[in-house]
């Protein structure tokens, strides 16, 4: 009896989680496509395909979640990813091993993030403007490094990261999906269960209070953007694994997909709110929509309108829930 009640209470608690609404939306959309195209959507293959597709956005969305919860935004993610593919390609061309190339790629992302954080905390430039600037500057740097063309590089096994798992493999999905899952778990623990995570929420929720409470807002800002940059670096490595070339014009508009994933997942651009789980659900929702539309033969323009509607609906729903919860005293 008491066990049943405990389970009941746990279920009620789950429904109050900020990511519960997006999760329901994801399941409903998936069920819709499964009903119309059971021969595609009720098979494991499509799940594996979609999981691989979502890896890059998902990893970048973990970092973006931190940034948005901290009260900021990062428009330079797409440029960072492109720059990282170029850096990894050049490292491999120069004869570096895959491990070194990956580390250099992640370090590049970290440096880009630290630059963003430094501009915001050090110069007091607003996050939107600072990262709008680095979005352009990093894209330029990528093109310069690549001499304005794609760089073919020996994949050195990095393509295995994004390769679909062989049939019957116990791993089920590509290594990239497992890495994305592990990073998401780490990000969720970092945000929800560590001192640093609480400080990120505090700064995003009310920076003045955070300062009063002895939190160095500048340090938290730099650390948050640097971390997000490093995650963008990992996303860039995955992107290289997918392309196996360094492409300075790659991933245009990726930042908007990533921001959309966070917002659909309950992130608030005024800071203080958002969860890694929600952002992943948001990324998954967009991928399901893309694949479903493709398999149903829905035109790309319809799919874009649907995605836009979902972003706005998610934000509006969130506002409504907050308003209801906040109407007290």
């Amino acid at each position, binding site marked *: 009896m008491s066990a049943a009640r405990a389970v009941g209470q746990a279920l009620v608690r789950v429904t109050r989680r900020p990511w519960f609404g997006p999760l329901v939306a994801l399941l409903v959309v998936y069920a819709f496509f499964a009903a119309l195209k059971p021969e595609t959507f009720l098979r494991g293959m499509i799940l594996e395909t979609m999981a691989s597709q979502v890896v890059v956005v998902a990893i970048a969305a973990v970092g973006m979640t931190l940034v948005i919860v901290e009260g900021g935004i990062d428009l330079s993610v797409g440029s960072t990813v492109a720059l990282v593919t170029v850096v990894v390609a050049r490292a491999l061309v120069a004869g570096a091993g895959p491990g070194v190339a990956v580390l250099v790629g992640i370090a590049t992302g970290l440096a880009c993030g630290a630059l963003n954080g430094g501009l915001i905390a050090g110069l007091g430039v607003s996050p939107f403007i600072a990262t709008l600037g680095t979005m352009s500057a990093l894209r330029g740097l990528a093109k310069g490094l690549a001499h304005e063309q794609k760089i073919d590089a020996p994949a050195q096994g990095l393509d295995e990261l994004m390769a679909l798992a062989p049939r019957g493999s116990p791993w089920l999905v590509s290594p990239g999906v497992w890495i994305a899952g592990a990073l998401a778990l780490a990000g969720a623990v970092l945000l929800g269960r560590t*001192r640093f995570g609480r400080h990120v929420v505090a700064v995003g929720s009310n920076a003045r*209070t955070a*300062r*009063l*409470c002895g939190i160095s807002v500048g340090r938290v800002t730099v650390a948050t953007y640097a971390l997000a940059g490093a995650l963008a670096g990992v996303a860039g490595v995955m992107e290289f694994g997918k392309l196996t070339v360094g492409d300075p014009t790659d991933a245009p508009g990726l930042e908007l997909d990533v921001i959309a994933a966070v917002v659909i997942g309950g992130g608030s651009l005024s800071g*203080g709110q958002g969860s890694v789980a929600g952002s992943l659900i948001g990324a998954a929702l967009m991928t399901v929509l893309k694949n479903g539309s493709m398999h149903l033969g829905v035109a790309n323009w319809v799919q874009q309108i649907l995605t836009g509607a979902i972003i706005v609906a998610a934000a509006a729903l969130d506002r409504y829930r907050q308003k209801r919860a906040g109407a*007290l005293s």
Partner: protein
Amino acid sequence: MNAPALVVRGVEKRFGATRALAGVDLAVRAGEVHAVLGENGAGKSTLMGVLAGLYRPDAGVLELGGAAFAPRAPGEARLRGVALVPQEPALCPDLSVAENIVLGVEPVRLGLVRRAERRARAVRALAAVGAGLDPDARAGTLSPPERALVGIARALAVEPLSLVILDEPTSTLAAAEVEELFLAVARLRARGLAVLYVSHFLEEVARIADSFTVLREGRSVAHGAMAETSLDAVVEHMLGRRLERAEAAAEARVPGEIVLRVLGLAGARLPRSASLELRRGEVLGVTGLVGSGRTELLRAVFGLDAVRRGAVKVAAFGSGRARDGAREERALRGTAPWRRLLAGIGMASEDRQHEGLAGQMSVRDNLTLTRLEPFRRFGLLSDGRQRAAARRFMERLAIRASGPDAPVASLSGGNQQKVALARLLHHEADVLLLDEPTRGIDLGSREAIYALVGELARRGKSIVWVSSQLGEVLRVCDRVCVMRRGVLGAARAARELDEHALLLEAAT
């Protein structure tokens, strides 16, 4: 006798599981100031919200000027002549004073704002509240009392007007500005308007109000004419029991060695020069007019604002405390509050909503934010331990909340303030800088905070208590000094002072 301008009968309002109003009756006549009294959480704010069209009541009827009144939106209430002045009027900091005053009711011709007319209206409204502010000044540059006056002026900018609701209008004002506000209220009454006046300051209410209604737990429990009742009787209605005043225990305390020294401190603008010595186990009061530099003094000491000149020295606390009887003293530099916290200094801001607390965050996070280390296990925070710690403080300070996970914004003002103080206790700060710790909170919480501070001082904590309330300062503090135009006067024993002497020193 005039007919009632506003009649409220049997109004009820529920938010989720919370019954904010459980049956309220009241009547206000034109040309009358009617006080609405009650502890925080008694339903005053909700009732004002219903009258102003922010909330729709679940039951009950409202009549305005003899006609049914059921506003569905704030704009509708405003058009019917009901003006609400919220406790902390939210101004748009980037707009001018005049633009704020006519916000939403701008005079327009051919789609363009008539700027001369806007300015004229703003000047008229400012004059009605007796505020000599520049209508072209940016609202973001105003001090809290100036913001309050602009908020009232904004309410008065709409004609016709029949009912003005003032929600805690004096909570951010100094004594002299309260007098100006009373003049403004008297002008409203003379114009034949009905005024609803919500306040915690009973002495004020006794002076300004003609009649009153007491709310308790969402019900109206007493009505009457102000002249025919005593303050003690009103307080009993508010509390539902007799108020036991915790008398000052200052005489039982014996201050120890000096723990904090401030030498000729000057900030970017204020203070201009401040020196003080704070002893272990002492409550040192700092009073003065709003704008005299009291808050700036605390902010500079705590490292929130830049210091232009002077020094802050603190005795080393914690493990290094008074080794071999030798007193270590360290100078504190820079604008890094986290260094002050490490040195054992904590501060509670006067601005709970914007700075003191992070509204969306939970009670437990707000309470423990400065010291999360005890909850760490293998680098991860243990929710259970943090919750348990928060619960201990909630019990000790009688903080009323649905639980440690409740968002701090859902608490009443008094309970929020207790959370802010509990944070300093959890941090185990040795020096507590408290800026207006009883502003805008109910009587019960106020008494609880007086008692708490007394107990802390007896246990060896040192407290700087900044307040505009002279009676409070004299009651709580061992010594008091007065800030006047940025210069801090010498501290004197509280028992040698009276309110009259303090006011004279502050205002001349």
